[in-house]
C-alpha cells in the first residue's frame, strides 16, 4: 500500500492578523492538486464508517474516488444524489462530529478531509457556471407552499420542483437563506458567491420565492390551502426566537441577542455603515455569552467591527464548548479571549442606561450527571466584573410562535416546536409537513436539509394518493 500522510492536507487560510479585520472568507479552499492528493488518502473502505456519520448519507468513498480520478463532474453529481447544498455543507457542517468522526483514518491519525473535498467539488462546479434548465411543469401540476427559505425549506423546494410540483416559498425577510443569510457571517460562508448562487439556481429551476411574506400575518396556512390553491404545505420556519437569561440589566443599551447583532451585520450589512443604512454599535470591549457556533460567530464579528477585546463567557469548560472545533481554533487565532467556567449573573449599567460591565460568578464542574455531562456549579462568593460596553447573548434560540399560533390543528410540544413524524415530517394537520429547526430545536444545516428532503418525498407520496382519489 502506498504511504499516506497521517495528517489532512492543511486548508489554505487568510492570515489571522489580517482576517481579524476583514469580512472575507477565512478558508480559501483546496486547489486541484491538493484536492486530488487529499482524495488519495481515502482507503475506499468496503464498509465505509464515514457514511454512518453523515445525516444524509452522502456516498463519501465514491465521490472521493471520482476526485482522485479528476472526474469532478462525476464527484459533484454523486454528492448531489443526497445533498443539494454541498458548497454550503462543505463549509459549515460540524464534520468532526459527523462524517469525519467515523473515518477509519481518524483512529491513528487525522481523518480524510471530507468536508474540504465536498467543498472543492462544489466550488469547482460553481466556477463553471453550468446552465440550469427550467422544469417543464405539467399543465395540471399540483402546488406546494414552503414556508421559510432556510436550508430546510430550500431543499424541500428543490426536490419538490424536480418531482414536478409548482413550488412557492414564502419568506418573511427580504432575503432568502434563513440562518445562512442572516446568522452565519460572510467569513465562514460568503453570501454572494455561495448562498445567493444556490438560491438563484433554485429560481432558475422554476421555484418561486415570495420575499417579505410573513405567514401567519399575511396568510394563514389554512388560507394558503383553502384560498390560494396549495395542495400541501411544508413549514421550515427555523428556531429564530432569541433566548435571554432573564438576569438584571439585560435590557440595557448595548445588550444584544446574537440574532440581532448578526442580523444587523450580515443581513443588513451594518459592517458597511454608513454606506448601508443600518447601524451597529460595538465599542471597545465585548462579552459574548455562550459557547456554540452562534457565540463564535458573534465574537469574531465583533472583532472585525473593531472591538479591542472580545471575551467568550461560557459556564462550562473548553471540552464542553459546543462550537465546531475549527471555529474555536479560528477564534483563538484571531484574538478572541476565552473566559471559561464563568456564568453571568447581571449586566451592570451606567446612569444613562448603557452597559458598563458584566458580572459573573466562577463555576466548577461537578460529578457527571445521568447524561454523563459534568454540570457546572457556582463557586460561592466568587463574583467578579468584566468591564465591557457590549454584551451579546448567544445562549440559544427557540421556535418562533407566529405560524403555530395561527394554525389550528397543527400541534406543538411544550417547548413550542411543531410535532412531526420522524420519517415523513407529517404534522398533526393533514397536508401540512414540517422539518428543520422548527421541529428539532436549533440543530445543524445538514439536518435541516435532510428533513427538507424527507418531507419532499413524503409530500410526493401524499399528493400521489390525493391525485389517485
Amino acid at each position, binding site marked *: 500500500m502506498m504511504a499516506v500522510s497521517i495528517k489532512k492536507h492543511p486548508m489554505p487560510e487568510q492570515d489571522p492578523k489580517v482576517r481579524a479585520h476583514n469580512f472575507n472568507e477565512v478558508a480559501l479552499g483546496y486547489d486541484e492538486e491538493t484536492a486530488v492528493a487529499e482524495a488519495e488518502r481515502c482507503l475506499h473502505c468496503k464498509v465505509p464508517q464515514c457514511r454512518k456519520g453523515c445525516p444524509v448519507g452522502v456516498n463519501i468513498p465514491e465521490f472521493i474516488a471520482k476526485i482522485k480520478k479528476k472526474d469532478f463532474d462525476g464527484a459533484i453529481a454523486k454528492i448531489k444524489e443526497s445533498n443539494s447544498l454541498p458548497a454550503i455543507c462543505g463549509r459549515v457542517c460540524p464534520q468532526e462530529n459527523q462524517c469525519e468522526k467515523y473515518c477509519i483514518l481518524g483512529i491513528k491519525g487525522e481523518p480524510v478531509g471530507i468536508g474540504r473535498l465536498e467543498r472543492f467539488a462544489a466550488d469547482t462546479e460553481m466556477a463553471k457556471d453550468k446552465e440550469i434548465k427550467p422544469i417543464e411543469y405539467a399543465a395540471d401540476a399540483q402546488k406546494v407552499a414552503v414556508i421559510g427559505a432556510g436550508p430546510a425549506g430550500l431543499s424541500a423546494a428543490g426536490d419538490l420542483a424536480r418531482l414536478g410540483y409548482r413550488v412557492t416559498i414564502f419568506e*418573511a*425577510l*427580504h432575503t432568502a437563506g434563513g440562518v445562512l443569510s*442572516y446568522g452565519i457571517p460572510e467569513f465562514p460562508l460568503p453570501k454572494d458567491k455561495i448562498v445567493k448562487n444556490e438560491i438563484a439556481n433554485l429560481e432558475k429551476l422554476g421555484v418561486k420565492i415570495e*420575499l*417579505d*411574506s*410573513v405567514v401567519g*400575518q*399575511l*396568510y394563514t396556512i389554512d388560507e394558503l390551502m383553502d384560498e390560494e390553491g396549495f395542495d400541501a404545505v411544508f413549514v421550515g420556519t427555523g428556531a*429564530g*426566537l*432569541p433566548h*435571554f437569561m*432573564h438576569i438584571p440589566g*439585560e*435590557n*440595557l*443599551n*448595548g445588550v*444584544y*441577542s446574537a*440574532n*440581532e447583532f448578526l*442580523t*444587523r451585520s450580515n443581513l*443588513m*450589512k451594518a459592517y458597511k*455603515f*454608513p*454606506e*448601508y*443604512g*443600518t*447601524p*451597529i*454599535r460595538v465599542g471597545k470591549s465585548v462579552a459574548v455569552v455562550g459557547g456554540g457556533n452562534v457565540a463564535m460567530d458573534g465574537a469574531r464579528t465583533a472583532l472585525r467591527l473593531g472591538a479591542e477585546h472580545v471575551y467568550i463567557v461560557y459556564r462550562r469548560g473548553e471540552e464542553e464548548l459546543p462550537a465546531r472545533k475549527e471555529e474555536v481554533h479560528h477564534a483563538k487565532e484571531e484574538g478572541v479571549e476565552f473566559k471559561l467556567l464563568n456564568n453571568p449573573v447581571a449586566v451592570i449599567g451606567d446612569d*444613562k*442606561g448603557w452597559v458598563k460591565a458584566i458580572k459573573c460568578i466562577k463555576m466548577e464542574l461537578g460529578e457527571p450527571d445521568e447524561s454523563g455531562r459534568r454540570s457546572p456549579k457556582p463557586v460561592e462568593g466568587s463574583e467578579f466584573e468584566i468591564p465591557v460596553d457590549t454584551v451579546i447573548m448567544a445562549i440559544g434560540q427557540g421556535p*418562533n*410562535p*407566529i405560524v403555530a399560533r395561527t394554525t389550528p390543528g397543527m400541534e406543538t410540544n411544550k417547548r413550542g416546536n411543531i410535532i412531526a413524524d420522524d420519517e415523513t415530517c407529517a404534522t398533526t394537520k393533514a397536508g401540512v409537513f414540517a422539518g428543520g429547526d422548527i421541529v428539532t430545536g436549533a440543530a445543524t444545516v445538514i439536518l435541516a436539509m435532510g428533513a427538507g428532503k424527507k418531507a419532499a418525498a413524503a409530500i410526493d407520496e401524499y399528493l400521489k394518493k390525493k391525485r389517485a382519489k
Partner: protein
Amino acid sequence: MFKIIKKECLSPGVYRYDVEAPRIAKKTQPGQFIILRVDEVGERIPLTVADFDRDKGIITIIFQVVGASTEALAALDEGDSIMDFVGPLGKKSDVRPGIGTVVCIGGGIGVAPVYPIARGMKEAGNKVISIMGARNKDILIMEKEMADASDELLITTDDGSYGIHGFVTNALQTLIDRGEKIDVVYAIGPVVMMRSVVNVTKPLGLKTVVSLNPVMVDGTGMCGGCRVEVGGETKFACVDGPEFDGVLVDFKGLMERQGMYREQENVARDHACKIGLGRVK
C-alpha cells in the same frame, strides 16, 4: 417593488404616501404596522398603517422626516417604488362593538396611527372622542379625517395658535372633569406624551392602551431588539405589541433604548448629505 401611487406633503417634513400593496391591504387591521426598506442599502424601518383600502389595494403611511432613512423615503416621488414592504405586522387593536366610550389621543405624527383605530371604533358603534395635539397650528395633520371618525374632536396646541392652549392631557382632564364616562383611552404619540397620559389615567384606574415604537429590525420576533419591559416582563413589541397596557409600561427604559443609535444616526445623516442622497424634493 411597491409603487407610490400618491405623495402628499401634510406639513413641513411630514408626508403621506399611498402605496400599492394589495396583499397587505387585504389583511391589515387597525393597530398594525409595516416595515419597509427603501432600496438595497436601506434600513428596515417600521411605520404604522395610517389607512388601508382593500378594494384599491392601497396602504397609506404617514411619516415624519427625522433621520437618514425617513429622508431617503421622502426623496421618492409619485410613481417611484419602495423596494421592500412587509406586513401587516404586530397585533391588531381590540376594535369591536360594545366597548362604550373610547378616547383616542394622537400627539404630533401619532395622529396617523390613532386614526384607523378611531375610525374602526366608530364604525363598530362606539362613542369616539378624539384629542389631537401639536406644537402649533401649522403642523396639525388629518384634522378633517379625525373629525369624520369621531363624535367629538378636541384639538390642542402647545403655543395656543389653534384650539385649546396646552397639551393633550389638559383636554383629557377637561373630559374627566365634565364627568365623561370613559371606558378606554388610546394614546399614541411621543413617549413623553404617552407617559403623561398614563400619569393622568392611572390614578383613576382608566384602561389606557399605548402603541410603542422601539427600534426594530425584522419585525417578526427574531432579533429581540424591540424588547420593552411591560409589567416587569420583557416583551417583543413587534409581535407581542405594538399596543400594550400603558399602566404597565417602563417608559424610562423605552426612552433609553430608543437612543441606542443616536451617535450613528448623526453619522448616517452626514453621510446622506455628503453623497447627495435623501435630500427631500
